[in-house]
């Protein structure tokens, strides 16, 4: 060990470089790995993730009514659609849609439409949950920020928004209880 350094190396340059390279790579890898705890600490924490499901009692909602519930700190629109609304939504030809998707792909039970109430343009909350609010040209929702119109299936029809309103993961626990998330 002790006299290793003073030993004349046969290929001094390459041996030297190899040691420096290894050490540098090792230190660099360690520094990069050490960054992960810092970065990951900014991801959702365990208490936030634990709140990622919301249970909703939908028994009081009448046909034609909408309710807004909070899921992951965002509004979720639950609309109990009228037969006419369902029929219009299902009959819509896909060619007319900027983001083509059938209505049946967007619901579990046609009577209940569940969408995240966040405009896919820049994150505003569209109007139309109350009957007094403007619902846009397709009688669904209307985003006042930049004028996006959504239909009764929550699909984008007109305006700058690129995508349909997002359908969250949900299931019917029983006939009157909805579990979102």
């Amino acid at each position: 060990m002790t006299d290793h350094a003073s030993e004349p190396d046969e290929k001094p340059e390459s041996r030297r470089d190899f040691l420096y390279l290894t050490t540098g790579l090792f230190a660099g890898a360690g520094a990069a790995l050490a960054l992960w705890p810092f970065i990951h600490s900014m991801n959702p924490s365990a208490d936030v993730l634990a709140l990622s499901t919301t249970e909703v009692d939908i028994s009081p909602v009448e046909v034609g009514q909408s309710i807004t519930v909070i899921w992951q700190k965002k509004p979720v629109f639950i609309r109990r659609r009228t037969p006419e609304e369902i029929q219009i939504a299902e009959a819509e030809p896909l060619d007319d849609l900027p983001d083509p998707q059938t209505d049946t792909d967007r619901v579990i039970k046609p009577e209940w439409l569940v969408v995240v109430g966040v405009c896919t343009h820049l994150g505003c909350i569209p109007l139309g949950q109350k009957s007094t609010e403007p619902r846009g040209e397709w009688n669904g929702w209307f985003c006042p920020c930049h004028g996006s119109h959504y239909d009764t299936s929550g699909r984008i029809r007109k305006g700058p928004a690129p995508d349909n309103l997002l359908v969250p993961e949900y299931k019917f626990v029983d006939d009157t209880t909805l579990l979102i998330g």
Partner: protein
Amino acid sequence: MSAHTQPSGTGSGLVKWIDSRLPVFTYLQKEYGEFPAPRNFNYWWNFGAILSFMLVLMIFTGIFLAMQYTPHVDFAFDSVERIMRDVNYGWLLRYMHANGASFFFIAVYIHIFRGLYYGSYKNPRELLWIFGVVILVLMMATAFMGYVLPWGQLSLWGATVITSLFSAIPLVGDSIVTWLWGGFAVDNSTLNRFFSLHFLLPFVIVGVVALHVIALHVTGSNNPLGIDPKGPQDTIPFHPYYTAKDSFGLAIWITLFAAVVFFAPNFFGEPENYVRANPLVTPAEIVPEWYFLPFFAILRAVNFDVLFIDAKLGGVIAMFGSILVLFVVPWLDRSKVRSARFRPVYKWFFWILVLDCLLLGFVGGHPPDEKVFEGIEGLKFINLGHLGTAWYFFHFLVLLPLLGMFEKTRPLPTSIAEPVLGGGQSAAGAAAKPMEKA
């Protein structure tokens, strides 16, 4: 990393372009590349690099902790526990920050004692030393306010006791304390302003560290022999020699740090601070963090009135005096020889001072009236506190000036490159001008 991996053509082109407009690369090359450093640094000279690392680590962990912390008396304790339990790697961030404070102080105390041993504060490095003491004071303030943030029992009561020190000031003391608190007790306003200042002060420290380093690069480093480099044969370029040596020392230091963070994270902490702050219940004993214990011992050692100064004010004066005296060390120590290696008497008193500070730390951790040894009546911790405090001031205010006058120093070597010419053999003339500039 990326700067190294870039093709050298574009890299150096960009480097040149920037450098001709803002000469950062020239500066780095001059101050950290070819900067001539004495060739004989020992491992005690690693602590400058270690301290730089600790400062960056504390700021980095602190910023990420601040993203999760809530500075409100009703939520602070729970928000810290949320960091420990729910935030991804939150426990790691907090344990690094809390133990980082302890390791920061261990390193800074070693750094200071290294300066004292090798006379690094002497002409022409007085200002360098003063900036260092300013950093120490700022560190203490930052650490004190940081300890309040978790809002445990010792956070609250430590803050109460330390801020109450200012009430010892005649006439305006009580008003100052109320002003510090922003209320009539340590409460939400106090917590909020401490959080704000705890976030701010580290960046002030960064500024003073910059001054410290600039001053260092004007005078050049001291070295274990305490003599100035006489020429190129006495120095080596900082890079790669000291970057390599500092990196190794730093890695050892981080290993020790990691061992504590992962396997004994509460070793330096007080259990009582895991109890939520309760303004109606004082803990059985209010103990500051270990790095304040020597100062705490000095504060409590003055338990008697001196003329018109009552014990309370006397203790406060002694405590602040114990730090302030460091500012004037360059003028108290009149010896022409820097390094204790050539000061046979000072060397002994240096180690006695180290032991004295350890003794004061030991005393600070015990109630004044507790017996030091079971079975020996009459020897209480307050007695040791008196002794330790008296010696501390005696060392700086009496011994240092006297040693400068009467100590017979050993002959200095002629140069750093050839330090040992066989001890007594060295020519008397060589030691004639110990502090001349190279």
